[in-house]
């Protein structure tokens, strides 16, 4: 029984991995084929001997001024949006978890309502507003919507984390001579670190993968993020979309997100609070 179970789990695992990773593998495969080979039709997974482009596609993509700008925009906008969102959410979630104040439920339900709002329906009003305010096609014009759409999720995640931290931790800190702010910074925030990093990863994903805002609220490479830039990506020949270059661009644009996940994942150590109190 145990043997068949193990085999079943293994088979299921492989199926899911194939299902999830096949498109990624295909993109990577495409990015190593030459443009001519793709136009001529190159159905094999591995490039044919004459159709391989080696790393030429990557070199071309990275030499492209537009693409470099887009990467820079994306990284800058997403990091700022993530940082602001997580800081605000940490403070808000702490208040929601610890303090009794009027309108607490209102804040929570409003946050949820915002998260459920369809993004597309906000694009045209935002477009008009941003043009009037003069922040159309700027970083801040993208940071604001990214922040407001990721805040609810971050607040909900973090307030759940804060609620699990025993009150006594904070009271002990206060008795030990800490101000409320010191207790928050030296005891509560370190304990909520897994939650903070979870929220940060989710926020960063949302911002990095966004396409609708990216394409509607920008017009030049001053603020255009990667997903939008890729759609504008035309090679030397405007009538022939450079599929291999696009594939290389897509691969490059996933690298930062993999790096971010790897860095943050180390911080998400489960069970950090164990040992605080006798359980």
């Amino acid at each position: 029984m145990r043997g068949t179970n193990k085999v079943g789990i293994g088979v299921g695992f492989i199926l899911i991995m194939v299902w999830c990773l096949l498109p990624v593998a295909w993109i990577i495969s495409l990015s190593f084929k030459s443009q001519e080979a793709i136009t001529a039709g190159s159905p094999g997974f591995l490039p044919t001997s004459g159709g391989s482009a080696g790393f030429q596609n990557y070199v071309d993509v990275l030499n492209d001024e537009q693409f470099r700008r887009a990467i820079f925009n994306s990284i800058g906008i997403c990091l700022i949006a993530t940082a602001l969102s997580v800081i605000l959410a940490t403070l808000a979630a702490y208040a929601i978890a610890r303090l009794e104040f009027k309108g607490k439920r209102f804040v929570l339900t409003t946050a949820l309502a915002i998260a459920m709002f369809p993004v597309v329906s906000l694009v045209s009003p935002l477009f008009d507003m941003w043009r009037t305010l003069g922040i159309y096609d700027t970083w801040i014009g993208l940071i604001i919507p990214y922040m407001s759409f990721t805040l609810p999720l971050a607040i909900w995640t973090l307030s759940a984390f804060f609620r699990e931290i025993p009150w006594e931790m904070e009271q002990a800190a206060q008795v030990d001579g800490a101000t409320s702010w010191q207790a928050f910074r030296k005891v509560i925030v370190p304990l909520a670190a897994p939650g903070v990093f979870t929220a940060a990863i989710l926020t960063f994903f949302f911002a990095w993968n966004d396409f609708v805002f990216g394409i509607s609220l920008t017009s030049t490479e001053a603020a255009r993020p990667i997903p939008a830039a890729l759609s504008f990506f035309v090679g030397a020949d405007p009538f022939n979309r450079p599929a291999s270059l696009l594939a290389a661009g897509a691969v490059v644009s996933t690298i930062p997100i993999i790096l971010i996940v790897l860095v943050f994942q180390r911080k998400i150590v489960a069970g950090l609070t164990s040992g605080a109190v006798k359980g």
Partner: protein
Amino acid sequence: MASITMKNIVKKYGDGFPAVNDVSIDIADGEFVILVGPSGCGKSTLLRMIVGLEDITSGDMMIGEKKVNDLAPRDRNLAMVFQNYALYPHLTVFENIAFPLRLAGASESEITEKVNAASKTLELDEHLQRKPGNLSGGQRQRVAMGRAIVRDADAFLFDEPLSNLDAKLRGQMRSEISRLQKRLGITTVYVTHDQTEAMTLGDRVAVLKRGVLQQLASPRQLYSNPGNLFVAGFIGSPPMNFLPAKVSGTSVELPFGTVQIPQDKADKVAASAANGLLMAGIRPEHFEDAAVVDASRQGSTFRAKVDVVEWLGNEAYAYIPFEAPPEVREQLEQLERDLDGESLRTQLVVSLDGTSRIAEGDEAEIWVDSSKMHLFDPATGENLTVDLDNAGYIHGHAMAEAAEQPAAAG
């Protein structure tokens, strides 16, 4: 170090329920005072008011000469050990103990020196670089105490610190706390619901019931001179026996027979006895198997059928059921509810010598030392035979002088 003075402390919650009601306790510098009572009696609330984690509705809280009602916890310079220890799991044992010092801005060399001294006292040296999550319950408990003793706090506050430990460790830590307190000579307030801790640790013990201070006295005074039914039933294990008693002159009629009490006790209860039934309180150890009692000892004997015998080696407990009249029964049931217990039947618990041969089902001859008997007013619960000079403060008695001589008779 400092004294702690509570004057008419009241704590009312939002619904107007007084969790602590008009409690006044003077704790002398260096004294070890226990707050004890069944759950919900307000003992923890009172402790949290001392440390500043709960607001004081009315009354004065003084530490030393300073009124601290409105001071934040960090400004009161008290150290507290929480029931669940509340260690900082992201810090090592060293940093946990050093935490208050770092907040106070102590220098690195001072921190190292003090933490090492504390860890030596508590035998934590080999664990200093470990995280609390990897420690055993007793070690965590010691870290929590280390965090308290590392600073020069004015007083220690303990909130049921041993309730999470197993029985053996509890005994060890109890003596450890006692030794530590004696050595540091620091004012200590200790909350517990465990009467063994209360009796063994405290210079004085404050017994609380539903937010009201019932009696404040040394353990010995509490045991031999309980001020009312509640204190009498709460202190002592197995608890004091309560029997309906009809008093006329010096003879007291109990369900098992009539016994004699000393003249001075008879005088004290004469007025109340005229109104009807009293409640007699006799501790289990004031009974004995008549066969093993030295004939020269004063007392009365009676015969009763023993229901159950629990033999423990050094002693044995015999249980003798009896019927109580309804008015006494009601009072006893109320008392059991107050004590967090459930009264299943009215029975006498008798402590016998280990050599006693009384067996279950025997009709046994039991000896009782009736001079140690207390007599209570069943309506008010007041102990009519209490020796007021030797009972500390008792709720309802004007006992100004008792408050001024703390721990003298301990």
